[in-house]
């Protein structure tokens, strides 16, 4: 049967989300070397997304190995798309021959 979590859980998760949002906004104002700003911002976004998926979207409660597989498959395919496209773009200048 469907899991019914305590309403308090949702409020706690929401509070955590708001904290993370404040954190990402504040940290984005702090100059950091290289891509660190972006990495931290994306890390916090991933944390927020995880909270939403696990608690608000009930992935944690549902006995849904299957749904996790479906969702992870989606992310994995997204990474294939990013990764193999970048294989091209990241190596375009390596050979030093325009167009290759």
């Amino acid at each position, binding site marked *: 049967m469907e899991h019914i979590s305590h309403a308090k859980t949702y409020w706690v998760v929401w509070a955590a989300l708001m904290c993370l949002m404040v954190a990402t906004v504040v940290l984005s104002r702090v100059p950091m070397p290289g891509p660190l700003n972006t990495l931290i911002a994306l890390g916090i976004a991933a944390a927020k997304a995880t909270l939403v998926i696990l608690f608000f979207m009930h992935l944690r409660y549902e006995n849904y190995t299957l749904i996790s597989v479906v969702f992870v498959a989606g992310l994995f395919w997204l990474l294939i798309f990013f990764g193999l496209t970048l294989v091209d773009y990241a190596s375009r*200048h390596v*050979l*030093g*021959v*325009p*167009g*290759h």
Partner: protein
Amino acid sequence: MFSNLPLWPSQASSLSGNVDLLYIFLILVTGLFTILVFAVVIFFAWKYRQAPDRHATQIEGSNALEATWTLIPFGIFMIMFVWGAAVYMRGVQPPPNAMEVYVVGKQWMWKLEHPEGVREINTLHVPVGKDVRLTMISQDVIHSFYVPAFRMKQDVLPGRYTTMWFHATKTGHYHLFCAEYCGTLHSGMIGEVVVMEPNEYQAWLSGNVNTGTLAMSGEKTFAELGCSSCHRSDTQGRGPDLAGLYGKPVALDNGTTVLADDNYLRDSILNPGSKIVSGFKPIMPTYNGIVNEEQLLSLVSYIKSLSQPQQGQPAAAPASVPLHTGRTQAPSAGNTKVK
């Protein structure tokens, strides 16, 4: 063979033989396996054809067989891959000191420019036995420069230079096709590559009306556009000095480094704000829409020539390039990169 039934394209470049050999290898291997599959299917269909007294034997499968027909094809595929990769890597890397020809594709014609300044349309004259490097760009849509006899094809893109090279081995006239669909007269965007003896080629070059080398017209454009007021060799310039720039790494103000190749030069003329050289201000106006692709090529050719040995001195290019000897200008557009 019948003249109107060619079963094999003529071999006219140093690459053709390699590609054909690989092709024959693949035909033999795949042909063998195809015949094997056909033979087994037909044999089974005949041997085990329906008969009143026959009862099918139920067979679950065989891991050993599965492993065999997984691993053997895989091994053969890897041989094919490695061989193909070797041919390919040779085919994409132009040898240094190749003579350079610039190609501009547009709907629906090929415009070709020799470094000596000779321009042609839909016909490319090249000497036999010499490395030729094509730097290509399109004015509109994607085209593809395809010479079947050379076993070579490369898409010609708008907005970015692509490169292709060949070494013709046999004189003659060969088809030049556009192989990437480009609109109404795609099938009319054809021409020929004329491979000539070097001395004939030389004669052909000098027989053409010549308004000066490509680099010279680039120099003229450079002056007309006022580029020289900022890009100066003294320290007063507000822009970076361009002499000796080509082929070298450039430090940018965002801390990264790029190689000053043809595409970098082109981008820097059209989108000066996007890659600012370290120590300079982003003050250069864009020339997007002001210069056309051919002028851009001449500018690039001119900037390249600034990285060549001093004018008047013998070209650093090997003596096997008789092309430039005896000419007062030696801005060989060959990509002798200053290392």
